[in-house]
C-alpha cells in the first residue's frame, strides 16, 4: 500500500501545481479537487479488478510522468491524416494550438481552456456530466488534471459538409497529457468528427484522453477515432456518448500504435428510437497490448445497436475485447447485435474476448458472437497457386479481414488512409520468416456469457 501511495505522489504534485497555475471558474476548481480525491481513493487499477483482469497498467502506474510541453513545434509529417479536406483543430500535449489549426466558418469549435475562462455555459452545463470520474480512475485523473482541450458545439439544424478533425499530438520523455473533448451536437444536425492521436520524437509518453459526446435529438453523428501513437507509448482513452431520441451515432475506432492501449467506448441510448453503431479495428504486433471495453446502455425502448470489432494480432501481441450490452427494464424492443472477430497471425498472439449481456427487459433481441482464427491455409494456397507471392497473398487475406470493418466507413478518404496504415503495419504484424499456411494452435479464450 505504501508503494501505491508513492505511485500517486507525482500525480498529486502535478495536481497541486496545476491548481496554483491554472485559473478557471470556481466550479472547475472544485471539480478538479473532487476528481483528484476520487483518483486518490481509487488508485491505479490492478488485475484483481474484473474490468482490468487482462490489462496491467503497471507501466503507467510505475512511470513518473510530468506534463508535456504544449508549446513545442511538431515537425512536418506528424499528422497521420494530413491533406484531409476538413476543419482542423490541433493540440500538442493536450494544449490547443491556434497556429496549427485551420479557420472554421460557422462552427463553434476551439480551445476548451478559452471556453472555460470566458464562462461559456455550454461547458458548465455539459463538462464531466457524462464521463463519470467516480468509477474509472483514468477518467478521474483526466478530470483532476483538466486544463485545456476541445470544446465543440454544433448548433441545432447544422449540416457540416466537411468533417471536423481534432488532432492530438504528444511528445516528450516520460511526459503525459490528458486531452479532453466536449462535443455537443444539437438537434437535427449532421456532422462527422475525427479524433486522431499521434506523436513525435523518441520519448515515451502517456496519453489519457476523455471525450464526451452529446448526440442531440434526430441528429446524425459519425465519430472516428484513429489511434496512431508512437511505438512504446501508452494510450488509455474513454469515449462517452449520450444519445437523445431518434439520434444516430456511428462510432468507429481504429487502433494501430502504442505499446499499451485501453479504450473504453460507451454509449448511453437515452431516447426512444436511437441507433448506435460501434465499429472497431485493432491491430497489434510485437509486444503490444490492446484492450477494447465497450458498453452499450439501452436505457429507452426501440433502440438498436450494431457492434463489429475486428482484431488482427501478430508477434506476441495480446488483445482484449469486452462488449457489454445493458438493456434496462423499460428498454423493450431493443435490437442489439454484437460481433467480435479475431485473426491471430502467430502462435504467441492471444485474445480474450468476452461478451456481457445484462438484460432486464423481456421483449428484446440481443445476439452476440466471437471468433478467433488463423489465416485460411486453403485460401493462401489458392492465391499462391495463381502466381501471387506468399507474402502478398497473406496481405490480401489480412486486408480482406480488416475490410469487414473498414468497408463500413463511409468517408472514403479516411478509409483509404486507414487501409494505408494497415499496409504499413503489416510487416510488424507478421514476421517474414513465418511459413505460409502455417497453422498454429494460437492461445485464445472465448468467454461464455454467464
Amino acid at each position, binding site marked *: 500500500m505504501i508503494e501505491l501511495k508513492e505511485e500517486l505522489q507525482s500525480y498529486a504534485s502535478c495536481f497541486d501545481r496545476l491548481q496554483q497555475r491554472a485559473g478557471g471558474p470556481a466550479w472547475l476548481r472544485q471539480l478538479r479537487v473532487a476528481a483528484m480525491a476520487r483518483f486518490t481513493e481509487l488508485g491505479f487499477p490492478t488485475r484483481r479488478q474484473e474490468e482490468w483482469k487482462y490489462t496491467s497498467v503497471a507501466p503507467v502506474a510505475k512511470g513518473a510522468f510530468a506534463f508535456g510541453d504544449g508549446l513545442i513545434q511538431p515537425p512536418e509529417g506528424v499528422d497521420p491524416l494530413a491533406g484531409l479536406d476538413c476543419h482542423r483543430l490541433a493540440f500538442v500535449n493536450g494544449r490547443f494550438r491556434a497556429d496549427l489549426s485551420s479557420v472554421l466558418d460557422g462552427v463553434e469549435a476551439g480551445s476548451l481552456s478559452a471556453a472555460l475562462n470566458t464562462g461559456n455555459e455550454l461547458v458548465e452545463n455539459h463538462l464531466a456530466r457524462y464521463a463519470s470520474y467516480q468509477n474509472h480512475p483514468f477518467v478521474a485523473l483526466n478530470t483532476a488534471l483538466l486544463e485545456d482541450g476541445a470544446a465543440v458545439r454544433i448548433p441545432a439544424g447544422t449540416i457540416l459538409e466537411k468533417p471536423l478533425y481534432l488532432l492530438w499530438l504528444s511528445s516528450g520523455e516520460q511526459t503525459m497529457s490528458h486531452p479532453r473533448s466536449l462535443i455537443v451536437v444539437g438537434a437535427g444536425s449532421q456532422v462527422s468528427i475525427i479524433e486522431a492521436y499521434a506523436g513525435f520524437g523518441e520519448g515515451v509518453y502517456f496519453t489519457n484522453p476523455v471525450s464526451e459526446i452529446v448526440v442531440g435529438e434526430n441528429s446524425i453523428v459519425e465519430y472516428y477515432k484513429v489511434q496512431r501513437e508512437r511505438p512504446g507509448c501508452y494510450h488509455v482513452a474513454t469515449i462517452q456518448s449520450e444519445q437523445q431520441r431518434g439520434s444516430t451515432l456511428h462510432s468507429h475506432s481504429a487502433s494501430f500504435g502504442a505499446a499499451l492501449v485501453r479504450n473504453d467506448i460507451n454509449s448511453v441510448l437515452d431516447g426512444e428510437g436511437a441507433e448506435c453503431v460501434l465499429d472497431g479495428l485493432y491491430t497489434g504486433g510485437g509486444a503490444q497490448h490492446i484492450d477494447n471495453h465497450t458498453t452499450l446502455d439501452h436505457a429507452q425502448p426501440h433502440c438498436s445497436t450494431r457492434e463489429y470489432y475486428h482484431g488482427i494480432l501478430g508477434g506476441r501481441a495480446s488483445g482484449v475485447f469486452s462488449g457489454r450490452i445493458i438493456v434496462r427494464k423499460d428498454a423493450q424492443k431493443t435490437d442489439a447485435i454484437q460481433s467480435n472477430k479475431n485473426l491471430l497471425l502467430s502462435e504467441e498472439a492471444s485474445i480474450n474476448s468476452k461478451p456481457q449481456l445484462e438484460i432486464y427487459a423481456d421483449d428484446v433481441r440481443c445476439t452476440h458472437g466471437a471468433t478467433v482464427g488463423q489465416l*485460411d491455409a486453403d485460401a493462401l494456397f489458392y*492465391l499462391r*497457386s*495463381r502466381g501471387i507471392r506468399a507474402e502478398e497473398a497473406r496481405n490480401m487475406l489480412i486486408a*480482406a479481414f480488416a475490410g469487414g470493418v473498414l468497408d463500413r466507413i463511409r468517408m472514403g478518404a479516411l478509409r483509404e488512409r486507414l487501409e494505408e496504415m494497415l499496409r504499413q503495419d503489416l510487416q510488424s504484424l507478421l514476421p517474414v520468416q513465418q511459413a505460409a499456411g502455417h497453422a498454429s494452435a494460437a492461445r485464445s479464450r472465448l468467454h461464455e456469457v454467464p
Partner: protein
Amino acid sequence: MLSIRNLHANVGDKEILKGIDLEVKAGQVHAVMGPNGSGKSTLAGVLAGRELFEVTAGEVLFEGKNLLEMKPEERARLGLFMAFQYPVEIPGVSNMYFLRAALNAIRKERGEEELDAVDFMQLVQEKTRVLEVGENLLSRPVNVGFSGGEKKRNEIFQMAVLEPRLAILDETDSGLDIDALKAVAAGVNAMRSPERAMVLVTHYQRLLNYIVPDFVHVMYDGRIIRSGGKELALELEETGYAGLEETVAAQ
C-alpha cells in the same frame, strides 16, 4: 513439357503415390482416370505444390526445371495452372482484384508489362464472352456464394485469362450439370493449342465425350496401371473400375 519419374508421395505416414511415371508433351491432352482413392487428386496436388503432400522419392521436371523445388507461386509463374476440384471461397477479396494481381505476377515473370485496370477489363470482357461467365461474378468476392457450376466456370475463366503452358484440371467435371459441363468443355477446347498441354484428372468418362484426350491413363492404388489412346476411356466406361484389381494381380 512435363516429366514425372518414379514419383512417390505420402500424406502423413501413408503412402498415396507409389511410383508414377508420366510424360506430357506440348500440344497433348492427357486424361488420368481412376476410382476414388487411387491417388489422382494427390498427383494433381503434388504438381501444384500443396504442402499437405510429402514427396518421398522421384522427380518432376517442368520445362526442364525441377518442379518439386519450387513454391506454388513459382510454378504458376512458370506456366502451371491447376483448376481446383474444390475452388476456395475467399471473402473480402474481389475476383477481379485477385485475378489482376495473379495475371500481373505472371506477366512480370514473363518480362511483359503489367496491365492497368482498363486493359485488364478489356481482356476480361473478351474472355467472359467466350466462356459465358456472368460479369456479375467478377465483382463478387472470389467464389463466395457461387454455385458449384459457377465455381468451376470461374476456374476455367481464370485459366483463360492466365493462359498457362500446362493446365491440370482436377475433377473439373464432377458435380456439373450438362450445360455447365458443355460450357467448361468449350472453354477448355478453345484453349487447346500446339504450345499448351493439359492433364484432365477425372473419375468419369463423361467429360471425355466433350474434351477428347490424346492419351488416357488409368490409376489404381497409387500407380498408373494402364495407358492408351482415347478408346481406353470407352472401354473403362463399359467394364467400370471393377476389373482393375484383376489387372493389377495379373501384372
